């Protein structure tokens, strides 16, 4: 039997179900590996070893009684932005120090209902603002493929944990690329579902009209499986869509005959890493070989996406983060009067990037600037959506790079916020349009860093993009590669 921590989510669930391994043994294997390796990676902020073991025993008990559930007894990692009842939930921020979640996020509740075991809390950029996880106030998370490089962000802990086999799968959140970009940089699969597919109840909001919860996994089938479990209408989130349950995992095939895949010219830009471009273009050829028709298209709106994103997202963030004032929960810095207390609390509690975005968002909503910035951004946003609608009249899905470059070094972009913002240039459009996208490995640089291919689909087009992603993935071996983590690792 292979090392259990190398198994996919589906494989883990199957082996537990068949009794090849107990949930407790599987959970212990992960706890043991985290113990040995995570000091070097820094993916987890908290590991709930006792809670996970107790739930594993309960899962084994349920199995012995003949109970079935899709993920019974399988541990899953959770991004620090999701409420898990009784756990800390800090969003990578000092301002939520000491806060414990009073309820389960709906996605977490659905994981539990499917039998999964929340294993621990994964690091992230503070309030999901960032592309390298360097904005976490808590700790650094390292890319398992090169410990001197970032894992991407903001779901950097989730991507690093999956890539380093510290959990079979994890939940992340994606507001402008925060699932797909770290998935690309860490060589795993990351799915950003259509806006409204997954309830946001219990997700601490960064930008409410863009945020979406999604899976980070070792392969495409696992992403489909996890999507099926966490998606669906939730009366507690008025923006969640009322749709029948999906069964994406059962609709995956191996060929692409009859599919039309668009190749938007604007996603292959000057200055992008040549190794990324080469790998993505090779992946396009591979899709063609699998039977797809490749359609060159143009999305001229793309050049306005970053500006639009940083207006819409920061405007919403400036209101969403107003509640962190020290009055009711979290960290409080005493002051001379209530207003002084709030000011001191926020000054001490938020990091520089969060402050930068709050100030930017406050500015674009201010009287006299609202029309020029916020209102105009909403117009561009509708135009971006219209551009995709147009593209999807002739294409089933689009192929693009996920990120213009592979994982970069710590500190390389922290001095230049604009440079950092450009990390999301290929991913933000999907959030602005409210559509879906998935990133999956499509090669490695000479230095051994993973490269991500993004497949973009229309609203509710998850079945199409996962079909493309799965057929491509199964015709390559990229997803089977593992980083060489010699640190503390025995001769397995």
């Amino acid at each position, binding site marked *: 039997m292979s090392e259990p921590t190398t198994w996919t989510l589906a494989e883990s669930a199957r082996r537990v179900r068949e009794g090849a391994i107990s949930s407790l043994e599987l959970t212990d294997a992960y706890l043991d590996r985290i113990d040995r390796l995570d000091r070097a990676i820094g993916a987890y902020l908290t590991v709930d070893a006792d809670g996970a073991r107790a739930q594993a025993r309960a899962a084994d008990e349920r199995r012995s009684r003949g109970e079935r559930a899709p993920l019974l007894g399988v541990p899953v990692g959770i991004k620090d932005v999701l409420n898990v009842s009784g756990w800390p939930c800090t969003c990578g921020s000092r301002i939520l120090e000491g806060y414990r979640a*009073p309820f389960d996020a709906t996605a977490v509740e659905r994981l539990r209902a499917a039998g999964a075991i929340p294993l621990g809390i994964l690091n992230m950029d503070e309030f999901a603002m960032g592309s390298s996880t360097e904005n976490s106030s808590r700790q650094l998370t390292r890319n398992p493929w090169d410990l001197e490089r970032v894992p991407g962000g903001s779901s950097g802990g989730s991507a690093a944990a999956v890539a380093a086999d510290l959990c079979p799968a994890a939940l992340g959140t994606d507001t402008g690329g925060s699932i797909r970009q770290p998935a690309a940089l860490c060589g795993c699969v990351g799915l950003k579902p259509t806006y409204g597919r997954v309830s946001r109840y219990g997700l*601490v909001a960064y930008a409410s009209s863009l945020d979406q919860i999604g899976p980070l996994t070792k392969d495409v089938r696992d992403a489909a499986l996890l999507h099926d479990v966490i998606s669906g209408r939730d009366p507690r*989130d008025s923006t969640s869509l009322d749709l029948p349950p999906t069964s994406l995992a059962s609709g995956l095939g191996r060929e692409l005959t009859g599919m039309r895949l668009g190749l938007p010219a604007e996603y292959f830009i000057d200055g992008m890493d040549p190794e990324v471009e080469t790998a993505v273009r090779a992946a396009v050829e591979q899709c063609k070989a699998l039977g797809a028709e490749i359609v060159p298209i143009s999305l001229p709106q793309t050049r306005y996406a970053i500006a639009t994103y940083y207006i819409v997202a920061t405007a919403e963030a*400036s209101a969403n983060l*107003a*509640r962190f004032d020290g009055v009711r929960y979290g960290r409080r810095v005493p002051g001379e009067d209530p207003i002084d207390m*709030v000011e001191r609390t926020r000054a001490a509690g938020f990091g520089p990037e969060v402050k930068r975005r709050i100030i930017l968002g406050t500015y674009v909503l201010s009287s006299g600037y609202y029309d020029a910035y916020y209102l105009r951004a909403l117009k561009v946003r509708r135009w971006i959506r219209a551009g995709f609608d147009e593209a999807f009249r002739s294409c089933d899905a689009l192929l693009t790079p996920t990120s213009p470059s592979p994982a970069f070094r710590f500190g390389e972009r922290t001095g230049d916020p604009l440079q950092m913002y450009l990390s999301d240039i290929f991913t933000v459009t999907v959030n602005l349009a409210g559509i879906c996208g998935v990133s999956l490995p499509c090669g490695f640089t000479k230095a051994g860093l993973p490269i991500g291919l993004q497949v973009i689909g229309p609203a509710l087009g998850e079945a199409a993009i996962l079909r493309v992603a799965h057929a491509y993935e199964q015709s390559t071996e990229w997803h089977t590669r593992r980083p060489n983590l010699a640190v503390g690792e025995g001769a397995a």
Partner: protein
Amino acid sequence: MSWRADIGLEVHVQLRTRSKMFCACPNAFGAEPNTQVCPVCLGYPGALPVINQEAIRLTVRTGLLIDAHINLRSKFDRKNYFYPDQAKNYQISQYDQPLCVGGHLDFSVNGESRRVGITRIHLEEDVAKNIHFDADSGVDFNRAGTPLMEIVTEPDLHAPEDTLAFLQALKQVLQYGGVSDCNLEQGNIRCDINCSVRRADAVNLGTKIEIKNMNTFRGVFRALQAEIPRQIRELERGRAIVQETRRWDDAAGRTESMRGKEDAHDYRYFPEPDLPPIVLSEETITAWRAELPDLPAARRARFVAAFSLPEYDAGVLVSDKEVADYFEETVAAGAPAKAASNWIMTELLARVSESGESIRDLKVAPAGLAALIQLVENRTINGPTAKEVLATMLVEGGDPGEIVSKRGLAQVSDAGALENFIEQVVASHAKSVADYRAGKQPAFEFLIGQVMRLSRGKANPQLVRELLKAKLG
């Protein structure tokens, strides 16, 4: 030189819903602090609002009652400002697409009929309550997130009297519509006043002063009584009115400056991304329109037509919905309408205005009052005894029939017993008898009084009158 005041109001009304605006917590007054709260109304990270549909219905109903245009598509917005009584440091409100626009309310002041234009009605969530102790402050979030409807009027009011009459008329409509309990002690209605003054012949409105957070009608009246002359004095001294927000100091009897225009908040409104737009169909509006209750004017006309009540009686009864309901229930329980009206207007309303209670708080229910009236109608008791019985009922409650029999208050209509009383009175008041026979009518009334006294008030006055007349020839 004469001056003219222009007054507009922003009236905040707490709606009568079972739960809060965006969560399932109860919308109720008076519980222990911070016991009616949840992650949503406490603004916990990750909690999301869900629209209370009943609050939408009540707001639209108010719009229909004042002939407003109902927007079939409206939305919620975030109003951003920091204050510890706000859980999220933004308030979910409606900015540029309120549920209702336009409309008007008719009312009368000193017998003169008046109309005030309504600008808009929108829905928002109420804030928490800050409570100040000796050394520090606390926040009670029970009220946070309860539904609050804001009615904005045109500056069509011109005097404190107008404004008070308008507020009373508005309160009637809201009570009739079942929209709000309109309990002022519980802060169900609060308002901000916009007030300016100009020369009587000026075309444009003067500079506006806002007076915030008025929570009694009397306060509004007094604040205007103080503020209008203050503005006139300023203008007469040649000083310009500077736009600002003021507060009413009830103890001092004057308004004082709170903040100037330059300190006004920039609320940075933007569409609430957590809530989809509110979309209403024509069918829904039609159905809601069909459910509208009688308004006071219509009900008054019905009382006159159906119960043959004098206009005056009908007007008094309908001025408070609860009183009008109470009257109709008393009649339904078998009391003649005019008698019911008399008892309610004289005895019960006097009691209510003394104690400040609602008529519903009295220990006498409509059925009890109807039973009491029945006892008078069938001559079991006379009028003065009935008042005595009512006084007992008001204190102790109980059934009037039982009170009468337990205390032996039933009227004496037995001719033998009455003649006995009459003989004693005639024997002991020879002078009055002589006076009566000499044609002095007051002497007769005096003699009747004496008979009633001897019977301890229980004698049937009609019968005493007949028997005494016969006796004295």
